[in-house]
């Protein structure tokens, strides 16, 4: 009886995994074909295997600079998010103070507000302060939803650390910064990793703000991809190759945090 049950579950799981992988497989498949082949024949494997599409991306500056731009603003964003979120999360997890619940709720609403709502003023704001088309602009704009997220996740992890540890450290004569860096941070290493992962993820996948706040110099890969319709029709093959390349960093990051993903989801209540 258990065996049959087990089988049913496994079949369901495998079916889902196929469903999850098939669309990605198809894109990978296309990225190794030529445009001609894509449009003329239909096959599960490339008939004339080619690396040309990837070559195009790695040699054409308008393509590869997109990746560099994206990585730059994602990195800036993740760094700032964590730096400001760490002390705040500590405050939320350890103290009660005037308006704490309301501030927490307000932060949460920012995670939930569609970026489209703030699109207009962002455009005006960054134009006025002269940040338009810079990496910093996108990084700052993404703080809107990443900081609340980071605070939320970190607060969850920090609440899991008993308060006695803080008190012991203070009795031992540690100053707050020293305690925080040498004792507390190592304890919530996993939490910081998970928070960084989610900041990376949401900044990496976002398109609307990134596209609106950049034009040339800081144009992210996600925006580059939306403009592949050329005079000669869609450049499917290059588009597929670019898409595959955007999946790679995410896949690498998942691999590194795979042990913490589930925990991070539960603890941080993402």
């Amino acid at each position, binding site marked *: 009886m258990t065996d049959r049950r087990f089988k049913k579950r496994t079949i*369901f*799981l495998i079916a*889902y995994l196929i469903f*999850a*992988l*098939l*669309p990605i497989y198809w*894109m990978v498949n296309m990225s190794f074909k030529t445009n001609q082949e894509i449009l003329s024949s239909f096959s*599960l494997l490339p008939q004339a295997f080619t690396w040309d599409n990837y070559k195009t991306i790695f040699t054409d500056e308008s393509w590869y600079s997109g990746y560099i731009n994206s990585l730059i603003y994602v990195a800036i964003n993740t760094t700032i998010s964590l730096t*400001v*979120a760490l002390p*705040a999360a500590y*405050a939320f*997890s*350890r*103290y*009660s*103070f*005037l308006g704490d619940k309301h501030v927490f*709720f307000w*932060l*949460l*609403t*920012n995670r*939930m*507000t569609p*970026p*489209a*709502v*703030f*699109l*207009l*003023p962002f455009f*005006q*704001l960054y134009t006025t302060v002269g940040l338009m088309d810079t990496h910093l602009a996108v990084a*700052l704009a993404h703080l*809107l939803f990443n900081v*609340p997220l980071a605070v939320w996740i970190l*607060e969850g992890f920090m*609440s899991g650390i008993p308060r006695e540890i803080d008190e012991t450290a203070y009795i031992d004569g540690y100053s707050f910064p020293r305690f925080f860096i040498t004792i507390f941070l190592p304890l919530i290493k996993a939490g910081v990793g998970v928070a960084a992962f989610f900041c990376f*993820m949401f900044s990496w*996948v976002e*398109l*609307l703000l990134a596209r609106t706040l950049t034009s040339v110099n800081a144009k992210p*890969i*996600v925006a580059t*991809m*939306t403009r592949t319709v050329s005079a000669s029709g869609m450049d499917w093959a290059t*588009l597929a190759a670019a898409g595959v390349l955007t*999946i790679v960093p*995410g*896949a690498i990051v998942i691999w590194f945090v*795979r*042990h913490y*993903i*589930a925990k991070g*989801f*539960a603890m941080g*209540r*993402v």
Partner: protein
Amino acid sequence: MSVTTKPVNQKAWFLILPVFICVAFSAILPLMTVVNYSVQDIISPERRVFVGTEWFAAVMRDEDLHAALWNQLKFSGAVLLVEIPLGIALALSMPAAGWKASATLVIVALSLLIPWNVVGTIWQIFGRADIGLMGATLQRLGIEYSYTGDALHAWLTVLLMDIWHWTPLVALLAYAGLRSIPDAYYHAARIDGASKFAVFRYIQLPKMRGVLMIAVLLRFMDSFMIYTEPFVLTGGGPGNATTFLSQYLTQKAVGQFDLGPAAAFSLIYFLIILLFCFVLYNWMQRLGQTEKEGGHD
């Protein structure tokens, strides 16, 4: 946030300050600006006319907006209806430990890390009847499938894409909830002679309640602001079949550059989100509280 008794310390505000400034810069100033825009007719930066609540009236009576809102609600409802049960089922069938668990976890989580426009692109490619695997297969099965031509097909394709994209989030949350159940519970249930269904109903589901709440909240909110994927896949069409709220707003703001109406629309949108957020947040808080009272395990 937990509801235990924490020491009162107003100095904690200094720790909050950086976050406060960062988010205020990106949220409060823009919000004030939006309010300003919403009461003016901005012809050019130098020529602005105060129009009162005219834009709000216009937006509230906009038939297209009603359509978009209705479309949005249907879509969000469908998303929850499919993704929550599917995610739970998926979590239940995922292996608990070992390399299989790691591999499954990575494959399942993969779609979450794909940039949203690439998600759109993937499905654009996958669904096309001429060059896409799904489109072509359906075509050969004799189904006249076209997500660019048929409104229903387009809507369903966007839904399928969202399921593909986001069910993993629900699954991972549910999975995390399941892993937190001590073995003793399963042992006790076996001793008590509980059926598989009873185990699900009385152990797994109650223990997953907290994470499922978050799943519902996140999926509802995120589906409510869905923009990029349908933008890439269908561009909101055919007609307005897949035009959701964000789409409509962006069309107005960026496409037509109607600052006033777009701002009024933004505010209404924001108010809707605020209400949902508030209700769900309080619901979660209360849930957290009852769980605390139940405490200890």
